């Protein structure tokens, strides 16, 4: 490439100006090239078996969305090609490029942070207590608690009514069994989540409990166990600030309410342990907030509870080997689901005071909850049906026939209750 007439015009054909312009042009070219070839270089380096540091590796960003990289350090070209050929090659190629863009995780968070700064600047005029994490985000940053929360809307109410009506009908045909619907205050506690009051149709845990109570309150063998908090600070003692789940301390609080309502033994908290690696929960990841909570769990000893998973593997409820084996980045982004024993399986506790079987139908809120129930009941069977979409012959009645529970506990998020009957039409068949 040579210089052109315009280049000459910019400062005269001779002189410092023209030379300076050429240097700046060359720098612009170098910058462009450096940017556009960086992912290809990173990819080649990884193919060569070199493990890039987490802050540089583009695939780190995948942990924010919970997906897996197509290329790993040391993976052969053939292996990468096989991964690309799986599913839509076009999409895979696009993903492969993205996962090799250096600093991508930082870019994601920096981009959101920039937008958040613009939103904060706008908020100087309004002083709202909560604002979106970035433009278009449905998660809101709550400055007072440095927390991120979504808002549950009244559109969920018909789904809750449908769930309640279906359960009421089902419970009346199983009068010998007790049922409990647990309503964790996931983002619905107004003092901890001021965004609810800023919307025209946000719902609180009080609204949610009232909806369930209106239908189930008159059914003798069903109890609705809801939460209430004195203030926002109390709430954040029991719920992660940056994840939609409760901490195990929060799970204990609701378990003890269940225990009081159902004759299970109340559990005493023997302390809280904090993991070395923090927890960048789902709301931090979705909201692209580069912060994390303390990853905490109960100090109680759960080693006397046997856990048998669906494949028949037997461990204990105190076994956290899966979590311990994870790389740091996964520990950081996946603490809640990897620390606890798992969802589908049977927990058995020979020392439990109540010699009965409890059937727990849950979503991920059951992760931290089930082993608590197993401190009070000899046998707890857990199924994660609240997260499932099922159209086969499976039903709660069939499962109850097999397991013969004296107590059936539902524990899940507002939106899972609301969509349950659509996703699993035979649940109460």
């Amino acid at each position: 490439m040579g210089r052109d007439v315009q280049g000459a015009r910019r400062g005269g054909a001779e002189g410092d100006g023209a030379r300076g312009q050429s240097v700046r042009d060359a720098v612009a070219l170098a910058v462009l090239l450096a940017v556009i070839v960086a992912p290809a270089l990173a990819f080649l380096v990884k193919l060569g078996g070199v493990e890039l540091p987490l802050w540089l590796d583009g695939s780190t960003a995948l942990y924010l969305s919970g997906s897996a990289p197509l290329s790993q350090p040391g993976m052969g070209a053939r292996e990468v090609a096989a991964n690309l050929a799986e599913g839509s090659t076009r999409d895979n190629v696009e993903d492969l490029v993205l996962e090799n863009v250096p600093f991508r995780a930082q870019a994601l968070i920096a981009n959101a942070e920039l937008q958040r700064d613009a939103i904060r600047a706008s908020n100087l005029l309004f002083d709202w207590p909560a604002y979106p994490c970035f433009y278009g985000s449905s998660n809101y940053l709550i400055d007072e608690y440095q927390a991120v929360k979504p808002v549950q809307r009244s559109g969920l109410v018909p789904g809750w009514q449908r769930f309640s009506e279906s359960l009421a009908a089902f419970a009346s045909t199983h009068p010998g069994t007790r049922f409990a619907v647990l309503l964790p205050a996931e983002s619905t506690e107004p003092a901890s989540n001021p965004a609810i009051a800023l919307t025209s149709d946000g719902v609180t845990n009080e609204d949610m409990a009232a909806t369930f109570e209106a239908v189930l309150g008159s059914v003798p063998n069903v109890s609705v166990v809801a939460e209430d908090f004195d203030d926002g600070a109390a709430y954040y003692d029991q719920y992660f600030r940056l994840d939609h789940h409760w901490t195990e301390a929060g799970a204990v609080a609701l378990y003890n309410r269940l225990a009081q309502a159902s004759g299970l033994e109340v559990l005493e908290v023997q302390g809280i342990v904090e993991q070395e690696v923090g927890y960048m929960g789902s709301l931090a990841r979705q909201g692209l907030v580069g912060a994390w909570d303390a990853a905490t769990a109960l100090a109680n000893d759960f080693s006397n509870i046997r856990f048998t998973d669906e494949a028949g593997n037997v461990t204990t409820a105190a076994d956290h080997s899966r979590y311990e084996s994870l790389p740091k980045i996964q520990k950081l982004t996946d603490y809640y689901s990897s620390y606890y024993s798992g969802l589908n399986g049977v927990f058995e506790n020979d020392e439990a005071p109540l010699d009965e079987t409890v059937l727990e139908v849950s979503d991920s809120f059951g992760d931290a909850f089930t082993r608590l129930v197993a401190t009070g009941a000899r046998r707890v069977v857990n199924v994660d049906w609240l997260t499932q979409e099922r159209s086969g012959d499976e039903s709660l009645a069939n499962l109850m026939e097999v397991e013969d529970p004296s107590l059936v506990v539902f524990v899940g998020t507002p939106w899972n209750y609301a969509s349950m009957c659509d996703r699993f039409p035979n649940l109460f068949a």
Partner: protein
Amino acid sequence: MVFSSAIFLFLFLPLTLGFYFALPWLAAKNVVLLLASLLFYAWGEPVYVVLMVVSILVNWGFALIMDRAMSRAAASRRSQGALPRGARDGEVDPPGDDDGFDSLDVPSDRLGDIRGEERRARSSKGATVALAIVLVIDLGLLGVFKYLGFFCAQVNNLVGSPILPEVSLALPIGISFYTLQAVSYVVDVWRGDVRAQANPLYLGMYISMFPQLVAGPIVRYSEIEEAVDDRHVTLAGFARGIRLFAVGMGKKMLLANVCGVLADALLVLPPEEIGFVGCASAVCAYTFQIYFDFGGYSDMAIGLGSMFGFSYPRNFNYPYISSSVTEFWRRWHMTLGSFFRDYVYIPLGGNRVSTPRWMLNILIVWGLTGIWHGAAWNFLLWGLYYGVILMCEKLFLLSWLERVPRFFRHLYTIVVFFFGWLLFSVVGLSNVAHWVLAIFGRYGWLGTSTLWELQSWSYVSLVPVLVLASTPVIPWIRKRFEAWLAGRPAAGIVAAPQKGNDFVPPCELVVPADVLPSRRGAATAVAILADLALLAVFALSVISVVSSSYNPFIYFQF
């Protein structure tokens, strides 16, 4: 594939640049561009790339037929001694569009120049028949894919029963743009403005050229004819391309996409739910979104063209500073305006006909402009809306406006294009009335929403940035600085004149040749600062690209 995607930026562009500059021969470079363009298109439209290839071949073939028929006619006339000197093998007038960015006004001496004596000498019935056939094919393809479904649905609605089948064809991306380019090419060949391109690969490169393939600017063959056969990429030209590309990417990623979040969220909601604030902020957001989206795309296209040695025409010239609708359309989508002027309006007689016929010509052009954007009543209404306003301006409004202070002229223009974008963006003609009512307060300030949940408030800090970026404030500063460097008076500098404006990327400082020696240091320092500012914009845009999911340009849908 879109420019603002990781796959384009980090795979397609480096590979294309690599192959392009690795090959020393122009012919090979042209083939690289053709293949790259086909891949670029096929990435998003694996089936319809065949349609584009067919369109290229058809236009290539018919243009050759026309050219040969015209050459034969010229030879025949020459043998009869009826041909003036110079009207032989394609010695034609240069393209007549030398009047800057006028979209519809025809200079009084222009029609006479359109077809000169020499062109008439080359005219041939055979060529005219070939032109008619190829136009039927080009416009027929566009009609089938873009309008047939709409037409059938309207006929069925009108009759009240399904007498025509329901047609639902996916619109091939970019068909509206490459069809216009193909039409301009064959018409220019027929007019004798350009010679037919004998090499189908080269014509294919022109029609499918990836920088401008899917959303313009609409480049006429005459504008790149020389570059197809002979072009040189210079460091300065390449760097200017990079700077323009960076500016365009900034407009798209940092401004348009952010505005698009608000527009997309609110435009789908019923106006009674969001009230005046929601509706007004939705249309305002869309107003900025479409300008920065389309303007950004055009800048990126022109920048990419420059990197490969092509000089593409400017498409936007700060339209939102206009003080009349006539001026607005000289500054907005300039290549579309000039296409309709040269290929529809002037052939219809332009303004050199009776007043009623002139008004009809305007309505025809604007009806076509509207419907070109999409097969929907909204678009037709949008086009006619501008047609009527332009008629009024030409008949009496412009002369009246000239007596009004400039501020009010701006205000008038802003109100007109605000409602224009409302017509354009609201889905469904029946909704338009509700939106207009909402703007006039029918559903209260907020409808049934709260101010917080409308989220418009969160854009308040961006408004000054959006407004400033819509105005030529940076060129204004730059021009004044350049004048200061040369010791020239700064009075009378117009940052974005309607005609003859040299298109320099914002932030790029053009150090004048006659810079005062004492101010050379300042020139260098400011030039470096300008480049650093552009680098920051580029870095932020890249960050945004790798943070975003698929976000196509608005004009892809047209």
